[in-house]
């Protein structure tokens, strides 16, 4: 629960960001539409003002025309006004004493004008009304003519207004409203509520005899555009909310994984503790059982009991090994330790391991080998042994079938050889929970009547971890009622055992031509327990000069002791200075040094030593020394290790087998 608020923060931040972006987009759209309306509205107002100014200028001109002349004739008036009103579609005419038409700018309109009606308004002013026109009366100083009437055609104004299609423009003049087609548009509720922009302006026409008029404009964006905006906001909101929820779930999942990892680590710690507690007694039980069995001290019934004890102890041992490998896999410290292995003997060891079970239980292991196997291959037999026995143990423990088949074959995949082991049982098949065990530790299958045996749920998971760490693969196929098939692909290397034997024979002057091949022993330790090829081949390296450099005296002594056992002539140095001094006077064939040295490191020291061994003029190496770095860390953890292809890297503790194999490669 410690991390709950943390994940909610992600959700809140995600939703807030989504809301802010939505709001910004909305505001931006509103502003854009408002700006569009303001721009169009300003243009309409400007146009109306221009129109007003033009009519004002025209009426002033006509008024001046009458003022400048004592007597204006009809011909003069018509010529003057026709020229003026050619562009602006307005009509000017004068009326006499009896309100009868006197002069007219365009005689074509005479009949239409005669339809007009003069009247006196409440302020005792004379007005002229004609349908489809707006009129303004101006007194003039002429004999027999009292007023000049200036009328503007509504139709012409409307034509002008209709030229603007994107905005509604409405004139309110002399009580009449003139508006363009856009104003007739029916607006939806959304348009009216959310996207409606309106402005209104008052204009004064009284200064040239006209009435004041109002210009009203409004604009609403098209429905398509509104839908587009709403759709974008909707989609972005959905994406933002979805992303926030996903982020929240992801963080929650990470927190859960973190908690699970802590739980797993605790379980591993407990298991490790148990592992160390039980390992010694198990080994004792196994040892004493084997002792009793080989002593033939028991009657046949007693021997069966011993076999049962051996089988149970082996199972417990397997659990302890799983725990150890699980810890190593968790700590990422698993490495492949290939060693020469007699495959036939290895398979025989597996058979023997299950003899005890076959004798006591009702299940049987059948091993099939595809074709003749090479006498010896380089393989990490300890890990392979554990993997195979783990899978077979599972088949024996949980399968309801009576037979377990194991097919072993050597294959090639992408130019790399591997050992393919297919283990098949004929039981009910694995449950969903059991299948999960391969990717989740501590998930044991549900117990059934036939399998109430030990199982802490790390066996299958450890198998997968181990095999993937060493570059192999594991696949499981299980069908209900048909059984389970587990296929392991484990990497190995071919070794030319015959040529090596011959080489050894010539080196040792005919001794040991048919030397025994070293058999893989499961659970053997690294330092001293192993029977190894190195011991048999040590003659090759008898008295080879080897310089050992380590600032740790204990490590130095142990390594020296191990190497001297193999026949090397070992010289030791505790620091860089003494090493350089030694190299100046002697050229050892092999230099084996620790990576971390006081004041320097192994690679830097090798650089110095190589320089000492290089001719300063020709830049050619004068002396051939093979350098080995021995470190508690893996090669990948050593900085710049890739830049030294000629230097061999090994991990502590010194593994004589691996060291001799490297030397074999060099001297081959």
């Amino acid at each position: 629960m410690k991390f709950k608020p943390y994940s909610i923060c992600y959700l809140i931040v995600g939703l807030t960001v989504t809301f802010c972006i939505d709001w910004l987009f909305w505001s931006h759209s509103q502003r854009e539409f408002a700006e569009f309306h303001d721009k169009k509205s300003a243009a309409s107002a400007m146009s109306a003002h221009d129109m007003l100014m033009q009519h004002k200028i025209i009426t002033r001109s006509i008024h001046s025309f009458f003022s400048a002349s004592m007597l204006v004739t009809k011909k003069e008036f018509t010529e003057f006004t026709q020229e003026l009103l050619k562009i602006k579609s307005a009509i000017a005419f004068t009326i006499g004493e009896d309100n009868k038409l006197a002069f007219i700018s365009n005689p074509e309109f005479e009949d239409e004008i005669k339809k007009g009606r003069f009247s006196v308004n409440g302020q005792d002013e004379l007005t002229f009304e004609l349908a489809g026109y707006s009129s303004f009366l101006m007194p003039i100083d002429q004999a027999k003519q009292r007023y000049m009437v200036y009328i503007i055609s509504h139709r012409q104004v409307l034509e002008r207004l209709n030229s603007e299609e994107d905005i509604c423009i409405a004139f309110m003049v002399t009580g009449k409203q003139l508006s363009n087609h856009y104003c007739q548009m029916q607006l939806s509720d959304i348009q009216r509520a959310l996207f409606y922009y309106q402005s209104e302006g008052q204009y004064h026409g009284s200064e040239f005899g006209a009435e004041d008029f109002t210009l009203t404009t409004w604009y609403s964006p098209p429905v398509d555009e509104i839908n587009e905006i709403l759709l974008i906001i909707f989609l972005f909101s959905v994406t933002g909310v979805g992303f926030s929820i996903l982020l929240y779930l992801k963080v929650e999942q990470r927190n859960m994984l973190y908690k699970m990892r802590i739980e797993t680590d605790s379980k591993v710690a407990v298991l490790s503790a148990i592992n160390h507690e039980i390992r010694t007694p198990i080994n004792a039980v196994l040892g004493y059982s084997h002792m009793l069995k080989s002593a033939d001290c028991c009657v046949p019934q007693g021997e069966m009991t011993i076999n049962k004890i051996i089988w149970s102890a082996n199972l417990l041992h397997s659990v302890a090994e799983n725990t150890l490998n699980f810890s190593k896999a968790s700590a990422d410290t698993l490495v492949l330790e290939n060693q020469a292995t007699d495959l036939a003997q290895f398979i025989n060891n597996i058979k023997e391991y299950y003899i005890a079970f076959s004798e006591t239980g009702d299940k049987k292991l059948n091993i099939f080998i595809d074709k003749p196997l090479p006498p010896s291959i380089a393989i990490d037999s300890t890990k392979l042994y554990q993997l195979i026995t783990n899978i077979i143990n599972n088949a024996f423990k949980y399968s309801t079938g009576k037979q377990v088949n194991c097919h072993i074959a050597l294959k090639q995949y992408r130019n790399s050889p591997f050992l393919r082991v297919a283990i098949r049982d004929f039981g009910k098949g694995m449950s969903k929970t059991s299948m999960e065990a391969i990717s989740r530790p501590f998930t044991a299958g549900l117990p059934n009547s036939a399998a109430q045996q030990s199982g802490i749920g790390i066996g299958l998971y450890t198998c997968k971890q181990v095999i993937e760490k060493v570059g192999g693969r594991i696949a499981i196929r299980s069908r209900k009622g048909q059984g389970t098939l587990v296929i392991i692909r484990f990497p190995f290397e071919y070794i030319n055992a015959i040529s090596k034997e011959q080489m050894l024979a010539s080196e040792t002057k005919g001794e040991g031509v048919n030397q025994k091949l070293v058999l893989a022993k499961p659970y053997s330790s690294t330092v001293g327990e192993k029977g190894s090829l190195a011991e048999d081949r040590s003659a090759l390296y008898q008295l080879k000069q080897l310089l050992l450099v380590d600032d740790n005296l204990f490590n130095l002594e142990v390594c020296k002791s191990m190497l001297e056992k193999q026949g090397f002539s070992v010289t030791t140095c505790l620091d860089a200075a003494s090493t350089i001094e030694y190299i100046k006077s002697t050229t050892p064939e092999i230099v084996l040094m620790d990576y971390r040295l006081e004041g320097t490191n192994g690679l830097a020291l090798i650089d110095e030593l190589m320089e000492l061994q290089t001719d300063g003029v020709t830049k050619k190496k004068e002396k051939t020394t093979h350098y080995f770095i021995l470190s508690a860390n893996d090669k990948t953890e050593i900085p710049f290790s890739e830049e030294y292809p000629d230097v061999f890297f090994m991990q502590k503790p010194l593994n004589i087998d691996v060291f001799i194999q490297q030397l074999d490669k060099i001297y081959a």
Partner: protein
Amino acid sequence: MSSQVNDIYIQQKIRFFLNHHAENDRKRLLKILQDEVILLNEAVTCVNSTDKEALAALKHRLKGICCYLMIQIETIFCYPDSKFELMLIVQVLQNQIVVVLDEV
């Protein structure tokens, strides 16, 4: 794991290590190991607890020794991340060497 179990585990590992060496060489090796661990203990005691680089070097030195004794410090202890933990492990190792030395 309890400290007593740790002690027994380390003792067994030291004995196991010695079993692979000649009987007349065991005491000498154990002495060298003791000296090395004493030096390591002194170095750990003197190192500044905030000097991560020096602590890492000492951890590496301890790991090197443990490699040869086949002691998986990551498995029995949490991997030492502080000076205190490092001191604790080195002292446990030092004490168990004394116990085994008495037997040889």
